[in-house]
């Protein structure tokens, strides 16, 4: 046998696979998962497990029915299910994450050819599907439960009695900070918005915990720092301009950044490989677009939160961004007089 192997590129590989990347993402999401249990009790964990199980189950079932190779081993369905669950308010009934995950996996991912071929982030599309399907359920946020709400067993009671048990202790429906942001920025509790003691979806309340995971992903080079930095930076600049127009230039910046699902979206959802551009410049443009659309929806649209819509829209534009920013081959000189 010859010593030289003839093969096509790539010739250099490493031990990084889809599975290891997905495991990294799961590790990065761990703080947010723990946070969701701390803020909303064990019913949150129940929803997360249910959502993951439904996502994996849907993918397995699809592969069986269409007689394809089983693909659940790459863990991407686990990530999709978990991300979707983190986007839900804790007050949703059990069937919401199941239907959402199944829709995300089957309609958004598998029907388009599976991982790497989906046109939009399945978790984002699943969330928007649920938001349009059950608008009132998906915006019925409850305040985080705390030890002061009762005895030390409050967390366990939630899991034993399920959703009703949770609504017993945390029946207070609360507007998210974002809902009031458009008109009034002063008086928002920035401290709690950063640590997570506010109403919101399971995983979006604590900016700190998401930041921990995000930094881990950047350090591990799973995601490109350009996306979250540009995305969050654009939102901050827009908030600055909006605030300046209202005469309170600085008041809007921090609530805009820490409120809503911006951190969750910027670190975990906008960075999805198959639905974001391939080049660094392209990624920056992509994230800039996400930031602009998010801000426009938040301040001028009819929904209080626009992160998921922004990411979905930019997902759709991604092929065109890729086309517009074709990398220049090394050493390539444009011909004089030739049209670009």
């Amino acid at each position, binding site marked *: 046998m010859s010593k030289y192997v003839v093969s096509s590129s790539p010739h250099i590989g490493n031990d990084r696979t889809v599975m290891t990347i997905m495991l990294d993402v799961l590790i990065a999401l761990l703080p947010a998962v723990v946070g969701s249990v701390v803020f909303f009790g064990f019913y949150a964990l129940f929803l997360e497990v249910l959502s993951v199980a439904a996502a994996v189950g849907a993918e397995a079932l699809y592969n069986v029915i269409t007689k394809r190779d089983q693909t659940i081993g790459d863990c991407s369905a686990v990530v999709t299910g978990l991300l979707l669950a983190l986007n839900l308010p804790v007050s949703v009934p059990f069937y919401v994450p199941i239907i959402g995950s199944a829709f995300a996996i089957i309609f958004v991912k598998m029907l388009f050819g599976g991982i790497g071929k989906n046109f939009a982030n399945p978790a984002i599309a699943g969330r928007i599907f649920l938001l349009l399907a059950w*608008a009132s359920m998906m915006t019925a946020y409850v305040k985080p439960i705390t030890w002061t709400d009762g005895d030390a067993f409050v967390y366990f009671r939630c899991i034993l009695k399920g959703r009703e048990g949770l609504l017993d202790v945390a029946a207070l429906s609360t507007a998210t900070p974002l809902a009031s942001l458009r008109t009034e920025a002063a008086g928002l509790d920035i401290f709690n918005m950063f640590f997570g003691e506010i109403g919101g979806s399971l995983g979006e309340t604590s900016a700190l915990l998401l930041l921990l995971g995000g930094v881990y992903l950047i350090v591990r080079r799973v995601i490109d720092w350009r996306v979250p930095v540009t995305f969050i930076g654009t939102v901050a600049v827009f908030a600055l301009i909006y605030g300046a127009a209202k005469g309170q230039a600085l008041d809007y910046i921090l609530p805009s950044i820490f409120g809503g699902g911006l951190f969750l979206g910027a670190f975990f959802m906008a960075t999805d490989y198959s639905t974001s551009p391939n080049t660094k410049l392209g990624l920056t443009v992509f994230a800039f677009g996400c930031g602009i659309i998010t801000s426009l929806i938040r301040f001028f649209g009819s929904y209080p939160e626009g992160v998921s819509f922004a990411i979905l829209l930019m997902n759709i534009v991604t092929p065109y961004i890729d086309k517009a920013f074709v990398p220049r081959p090394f050493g390539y000189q444009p011909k004089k007089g030739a049209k670009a």
Partner: protein
Amino acid sequence: MRKGLGYEIFMTALVLVIIAGVAGALLGLVNHFTEVDEEELIARKATAVYDGVLVPYVKEGVAAPIEENYGQVLGVYNAEGKDVYVIVARGVGAYKGSLDLLVNITDGKIAKIAAYEANETPGLGSKALQDSYFSAFYGKKITSDFKGFTFVKGPAIAPDDVSAVTGASKSSTAVINAVNIAVKWYQMRVLTGVQQ
């Protein structure tokens, strides 16, 4: 045999004219049988808010309709000899521009409301067009200093607050606008008349 260009143009025009003429005649004939009397249509729909005979409201040459930037009164009907007014009110701000309601004001109180011409999104906006929502207005005594209902998102606090239907704030707004213009009409045309 080749015919001239003029002949061809003439024949083309003739055929088109004949087709259009026959079509027009046919439509006229059908229209004769299916013509809907607007008054009758309103009276038929008005049975949703009032069980009885209604006649167009005329009073001393004062034109019934009024118009504001949030809505307008398209027409008013009343039951003869009774203090019953059925107001066709249009409120702006709906998902599809505007919507028309029938508002029955009996003995100075809002008695019944029904959708007259409204085509909001089924399942969303249509929730603001159901009796369960309209009942928030029922029983309200209209005095000359009543300022109209106030639209609020979230729970109603003040006595004249009406909270929006979740997921249908546009339709809710339009409904409140329509009720308010009906109330305003009642104040302008009926209450001030009584006081004079």
